[in-house]
């Protein structure tokens, strides 16, 4: 158990490129933090900086009460699970798991006992004498987990650990990781680009973009109150509809729900966001706009409808519950509840 504190953490590569623009984050004991973002947003660099695999250019990194900026990875008491597992191919599962313990000079008997305990926890007892290449993808993933767990580190670091698995296995391992981490109660940082993984695993979610933190919060908080336009689009699938408001010309801007916004924010608002699942069919009088249907995707449990509306440049996506036998070129009057409308200013910040 440990806390982790990042204080204005910056990472600049020797070629001058600034990858992390000053990250602040406090992670509590036993918390599971998921860092999510598009590729190139700096999430992996952040994780690797915490691990000590990348040097930190500026700022402080604390594990409990120790500043660890200048410590080697092995001295930070962290464990990492890599995307491609990075199992030592010439060692058995047992040796893979025992390697870090041996390097710390832990007596052989204790090593053996710890490895066996961990193997039992993960259901790896039968595989201890095998080599990585004799294992399936899921088993390798489990060994990589075991190698991290066996050391009982202060912090676990996961670098997209499930992205090499097929979809079904990914769902299963996701549940297992969550259960395991809660049982061990160890602080963990988990990097992924998969937002479902992020939403289901995280105690708190960190959304990153362009080397900066966009928002930190509980998954549902991010879903219902996205702090920026970026977070709004990134969380949720299909993505939130973002409609550019031109206060004078657009008929939408004259709609009471939009028009009756408190004056000051309304002036600043540049974008209206509505999630596809929050749009519903309503009567023409209350509708925000009339959608000309262009394409329908019946998914069974729900139906995705794509189309355009007069005065709105962007394509609109609507998610309707159940099955809707809609024709293309049909017309839908769509409305939404006031609390489901999100307004963002010109800079993309929530109003």
């Amino acid at each position, binding site marked *: 158990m440990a806390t982790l504190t990042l204080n204005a953490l910056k990472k600049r590569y020797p070629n001058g490129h600034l990858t992390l623009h000053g990250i602040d984050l406090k992670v509590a004991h036993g918390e599971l933090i998921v860092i999510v973002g598009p590729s190139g947003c700096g999430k992996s660099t952040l994780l690797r900086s915490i*691990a*000590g*695999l990348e040097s930190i250019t500026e700022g402080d990194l604390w594990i409990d009460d120790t500043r660890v900026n200048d410590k080697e990875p092995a001295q930070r008491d962290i464990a990492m699970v890599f995307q491609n597992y990075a*199992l*030592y191919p*010439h060692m058995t599962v047992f040796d893979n798991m025992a390697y870090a313990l041996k390097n*710390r000079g832990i007596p052989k008997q204790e090593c053996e006992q710890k490895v066996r305990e961990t193997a039992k926890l993960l259901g790896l007892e039968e595989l201890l004498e095998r080599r990585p290449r004799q294992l399936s993808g899921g088993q390798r993933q489990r060994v990589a987990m075991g190698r991290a767990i066996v050391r009982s580190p202060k912090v676990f670091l996961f670098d997209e650990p499930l992205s090499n698995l097929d979809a079904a296995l990914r769902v299963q391992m996701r549940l297992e990781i969550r259960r395991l981490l809660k049982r061990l109660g160890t602080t963990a940082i988990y990097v992924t680009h998969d937002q479902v993984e992020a939403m289901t695993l995280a105690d708190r979610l960190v959304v990153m973009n362009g080397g900066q933190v966009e928002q930190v919060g509980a998954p549902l908080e991010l879903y219902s109150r996205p702090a920026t336009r970026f977070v709004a689009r990134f969380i949720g699938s299909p993505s939130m509809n973002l409609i550019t408001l031109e206060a004078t010309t657009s008929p939408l801007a004259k709609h009471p729900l939009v028009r009756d916004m408190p004056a000051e924010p309304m002036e600043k608002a540049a974008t209206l966001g509505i999630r596809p699942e929050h749009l519903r069919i309503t009567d023409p009088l209350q509708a925000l706009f009339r959608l000309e249907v262009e394409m329908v995707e019946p998914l069974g449990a729900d139906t995705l409808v794509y189309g355009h509306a007069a005065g709105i440049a962007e394509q609109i996506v609507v998610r309707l519950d159940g099955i809707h036998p809609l024709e293309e070129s049909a017309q839908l009057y769509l409305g939404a509840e006031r609390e489901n409308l999100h307004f963002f200013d010109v800079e993309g910040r929530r109003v």
Partner: protein
Amino acid sequence: MRYRRPGLDVFSHLLLILAVIAFLFPVWMALTAATHSRTDLYTSIAPLWFGSEGLHNFISVLTEPIPGVGASASTMLLNSLVMSLGIAFGKIAISMLAAYAVVFFRFPGRALCFWLIFMTLMLPVEVRIVPTYQVVADLHMLNSYPGMILPLMASATATFLFRQFFLTVPPELLEAARVDGAGPWKFLWDILLPLSKTNIAALFVIMFLYGWNQYLWPLMITTDQSWTTVVVSLKQLASASDALVPWQLVTAMALLALIPPVVVIIVMQRYFVKGLVDSEK
């Protein structure tokens, strides 16, 4: 291919077998000649079948000082063995360390070292043989194993091969090792070395052959007969007397000289092919 022509198949096998026989022919003739006495040999042309001497000629070259050379074949076989093993292991060791430094470390001067080492790929030892001889003489290393071995290690072929291999090692392996508390030496010993086993075996075959079959270099720097290698001594034996060449001894020596490397190549065939193809890429 499934569209076979039986006639062509028979023809292929026939030609291949012919080639196999042609390849073996000189060795066979050496083998039969080595089992004859000199007088038997010179009564007619070279015999196609074994003679009455059995292993006598082999035993004689192995135990007695060879005319024109002064040492016995066992001494020379030992010299050849030490030299080729020295070159093989020495080259593998220094090349692996150097490649490790170049691939897994960033330090000022790295690019320069890289080029200094890889420039040696351009010139084989034979080109600079005379000045190399002078250097070795200045270092008082004539007639010594280091003198025979070290100059032949001064090339980057193996370094290049190790570098190519190290570049294919997933970087996460190094990172995992760092997280697991392995420093540079531990990583080299615990992880990189075991992973390089196949490459080391392949290089070993190539370097052993290279060392064993050296001719010009050992010829130049071994002025004392007791340091001669078996490959070099063949000429001295063949041209020892102005009279008839003692072919029964020469062929026996030639066979002794070719058996060790041929055995290595056959036993380690798989590594040989890999080593040859990789090291020339």
